[in-house]
């Protein structure tokens, strides 16, 4: 491997003097990482011990503010934040608790490391947490975010964004790029999404979307309700499906839209024309198409829930 490891810093930090002994020690400070030759293009963060908050800014350096909490000095010494900066512009930050057989057992709930990171806007961010909050804001190169049970929040981010959550809620606001959200059992909230593709599944959780504009939209839940207010893209495809949950879609249209819906009870609103029923599907078209224009297609489905569709003129 030709890649040369430039720096391996272990930020142990000195425990700050605590004026009130009753309070557990808290450790802070800022570490700044300057790009080594190549600008910082990719930051990978793995913090299973607390929150990660990444904020994009116009600078070139990476500023890391680790905030450690532990019940005593001995435990504080076991908390580690490791940083590896590679010359190709990749920076990896990980947190850990040192294994120490001689110390008394240290419960995970008793310690915490929160990371606040100011990163160059153009860096792609891959971050993972366990139960802590994961926040990404003001970035221009998207990223991939992973959580077990902590909430994910993305705000004002351009570029492709992938999120993976087991039971933590996901909130995406002002994302300009393709989005892929996968949540097993928690709610997904989308506001102002503007990209080529939007794929979101929430399992047992519900999905709510506002001001969504994407050429291909695919929203799926097993149990949760789906409420979407979207803009129909020309020649776009919008597929909203749930097994048990209700589906409620309101669409702003710029051209013709063909709607196909199937559900326990289907309501396609008053603005639709040419409604027909076949094999349980209700099909309707809103607006007229000429030879050059291809209608946007909308497919709404709920096996056991109700389906509702309306046009916002």
């Amino acid at each position, binding site marked *: 491997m030709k890649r040369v490891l430039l720096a391996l810093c272990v930020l142990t930090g000195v425990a700050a003097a605590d004026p009130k002994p009753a309070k557990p020690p808290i450790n802070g400070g800022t570490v700044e990482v300057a790009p080594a030759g190549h600008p910082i293009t990719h930051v990978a963060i793995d913090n299973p011990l607390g929150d990660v908050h990444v904020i994009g800014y116009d600078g070139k350096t990476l500023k890391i503010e680790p905030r450690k909490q532990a019940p005593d000095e001995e435990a504080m010494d076991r908390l580690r934040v490791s940083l590896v900066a590679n010359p190709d512009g990749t920076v990896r930050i990980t947190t850990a608790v040192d*294994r120490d057989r001689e110390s008394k057992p240290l*419960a995970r709930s008793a310690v915490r490391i929160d990371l606040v990171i100011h990163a160059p806007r153009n860096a792609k961010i891959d971050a993972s947490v366990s139960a802590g909050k994961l926040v990404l804001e003001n970035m221009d190169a998207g990223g991939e975010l992973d959580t077990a049970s902590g909430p994910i929040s993305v705000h004002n981010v351009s570029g492709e964004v992938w999120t*993976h959550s*087991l039971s933590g809620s996901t909130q995406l606001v002002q994302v300009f790029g393709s989005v892929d959200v*996968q949540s097993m059992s928690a709610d997904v909230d989308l506001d102002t999404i503007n990209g080529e593709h939007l794929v979101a599944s929430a399992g047992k959780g519900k999905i709510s979307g506002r001001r969504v504009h994407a050429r291909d939209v695919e929203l799926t839940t097993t149990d949760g309700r789906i409420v979407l207010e979207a803009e129909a893209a020309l020649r776009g495809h919008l597929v909203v*499906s749930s097994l048990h949950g209700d589906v409620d879609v309101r669409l702003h249209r710029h051209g013709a839209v063909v709607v196909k819906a199937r559900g326990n009870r289907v309501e396609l609103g008053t603005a639709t024309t040419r409604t027909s029923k076949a094999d349980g599907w209700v099909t309707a078209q809103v607006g007229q198409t000429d030879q050059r224009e291809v209608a946007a297609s909308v497919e709404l489905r709920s096996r056991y829930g109700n389906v509702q569709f309306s046009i916002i003129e």
Partner: protein
Amino acid sequence: MRCEDCRRDLTAYLDGELADERGSALRGHLRGCAECRAISDAESTLRDGLRSLPPLDPPSSLWAGVQAQLAAAEAADAEKPRWRRTLARWLPVVPRYAFGGLAAAAVALVIWSRLHRAPDEPAPVAALTPTPVIVEAKVVPPPVDLDATADLAAEPAHVGDEYRQAADELLAQAPEIQKEWSDAQRQAFATKVAALRTQAERAEVGKPSRRAWEGLIRYLEGALIRSDVALAGGAP
């Protein structure tokens, strides 16, 4: 399976001595019960730690010393008179027999008094009041104070289990939905699910495993909720 059953069988399970059916039930319980899983992990970690200890050979002088002490004790025993040796043999069990005899006598007395009570004799008031039932206190294990390192190391596997459970829950809905499918569609679905599942089970614990389970779940959602399988094979 209840938590107390799980904890009783845990040692045998970790030793690989539990029968298949019981082992499967215990595994199922561990998937759903975080507390038992934490105890199981702590026990596994302890065992791993013990296994990793270097083997220790006792010095030969140790066994020689034990033998010498045994010989000295036997020689001293031989010196005692016969009645003292007999008494020493019976003394440890005397209290047990005495207690048993007393208990038997008490039971016999109660039965005799009930049988010989006059028919018009009112029952003692005490007999009408409910006898206080002494319930054995439920043994609540102390909270497992796992070390953070063990907890962190075990987390990826737990998360993988959660994904597996989510996939299984989705798969459990398949039979009802598949009623509308053709045999070929059902076959194609089963083959694909088996392949993705094998991939997920074999994936490295951590992110690769999570991604593989997510892949299976996405496929299940597509097939079962959006009927992608049915559409791909022509509407049923």
